């Protein structure tokens, strides 16, 4: 490349920022409305399984789904990881666990953060319950995180 060697190469901070608002639709909307009321709902799939979080269409048959089912609020950790350093946007800003949580009455698992004292306090099969935010807006973060059941 012409003159490449005599040119000092520049770098600059580049911030990408999108303040998006999203329409949630009837199914996700009902789930989020439920969270605002401290209630967790799944949806029944064509084969009878209860999917949490709910989806609009059956993952296997693409049939439109509409039968909501109350689940949780407690559940069982099916797999987890311990994050020693939280990423800057994570729900908890300290060492914490991510877990897939099968809520009572559900057949699929919800991803969320678990606030445990240490990695040693985490175990597949352990029971956890949601910790609700005091100010709720109808958002997945209305659940601040899950925590071990006493």
């Amino acid at each position: 490349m012409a003159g490449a060697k005599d040119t000092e190469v520049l770098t600059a901070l580049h911030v990408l920022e999108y303040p998006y608002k999203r329409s949630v639709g009837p199914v996700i909307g009902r789930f989020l409305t439920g969270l605002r009321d401290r209630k967790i709902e799944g949806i029944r799939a064509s084969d009878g399984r209860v999917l949490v979080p709910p989806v609009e269409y059956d993952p296997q048959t693409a049939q439109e789904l509409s039968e909501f089912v109350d689940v949780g609020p407690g559940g069982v950790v099916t797999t987890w990881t311990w994050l020693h350093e939280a990423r800057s946007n994570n729900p908890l800003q300290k060492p914490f666990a991510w877990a897939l949580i099968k809520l009572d009455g559900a057949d699929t698992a919800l991803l969320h953060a678990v606030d445990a004292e240490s990695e040693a306090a985490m175990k597949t099969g352990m029971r956890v319950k949601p910790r609700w935010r005091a100010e709720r807006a109808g958002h997945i973060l209305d659940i601040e995180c899950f925590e071990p059941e006493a």
Partner: protein
Amino acid sequence: MRDVAVVSFAQSKSVRADPVQNEVEILMPVIQEAVANSGIPAKEIGFTCSGSADYLAGQPFAFVYGLEAIGAWPPVRESHVEADGAWALYEAWVLLQEGEIDAALIYGFGKSSPGSLRDVLTRQLDPYYLAPLWPDAISLAALQARALLESTENTERDMAEVAARSRRDGKANPNAQLTGDFDPDALLKEPYIASPLRKHDCAPISDGAAAVVLATGDRARAVSKRPAWIRGIDHRVEPHYPGVRDLTRSPSTRIAAEKAGALDGTFDVAELYAPFTHQELILRDALGLAKPNGTKINPSGGALAANPMMAAGLIRIGEAATRITNGEANRAIAHATSGPCLQQNLVAVLEGE
């Protein structure tokens, strides 16, 4: 079906961060090398298809800018996928089946160094339930790794051995980034990043690019002494939300392999795009390669030795094809993946004549 072969492949050396060159500057020599080595004049290449992702470098429509590297004048027939270049190759392969053109250029490029890759990748997640939590790519893979370890015979040592083998084989690959001799026992003494994943379980972050030229039938025979024929190619995708999937298996890989004819007979080489060590174990299981059977796994070092996003899958096809063209192998599997926890998978079967 028309016979389609890889007749040329080129890639940049993967580096942790290229602070000097922009994407076009990285890509241009790679495309020039691939086209020159194909023996097909650029103007006779009837289709160009690329794979890239704008979020990697944070530049919207970066792929349009990437076109400067091919010289799109007079206007060329072109397409782009917001995915690995392996999917761009699939699109080109489909177009070649139509019979209108007999050569295509495919490239993939990714400069991951400007941002924080594991966080940037959260932007591919569903925006309602997952993305607001910002679960980084390593954490999601770690959920899969633990599920695998706790439900199968696989161990953290098996994972460390995958890392050690990949980095060792990468020593023979001049384009690899993370190579050398490592003792699995020593690797297992390293701390977890997101348990049960340690640093060696995760692919390095790379800047790089790759390009492939495909040609059909006699055109391929005329320009290549030994074309790497694509005998089958297929890709499949699973539901997105990780909690609805059995993360310990890869049914999409299995079906793609079945459709591509990759479950019949034996293979000399398998180039698998596993950006995490445990994912190689899952993929090998899906492809019937769990036990040693004479198939050499990732002789290039694979993604654990170099992982330029949006090019690393295309590189698997190129590496497999190179081994056929140079006579080292007669039959090879190439695999590419996309999305969290092996959500989407592509399998191709390549053969010499």
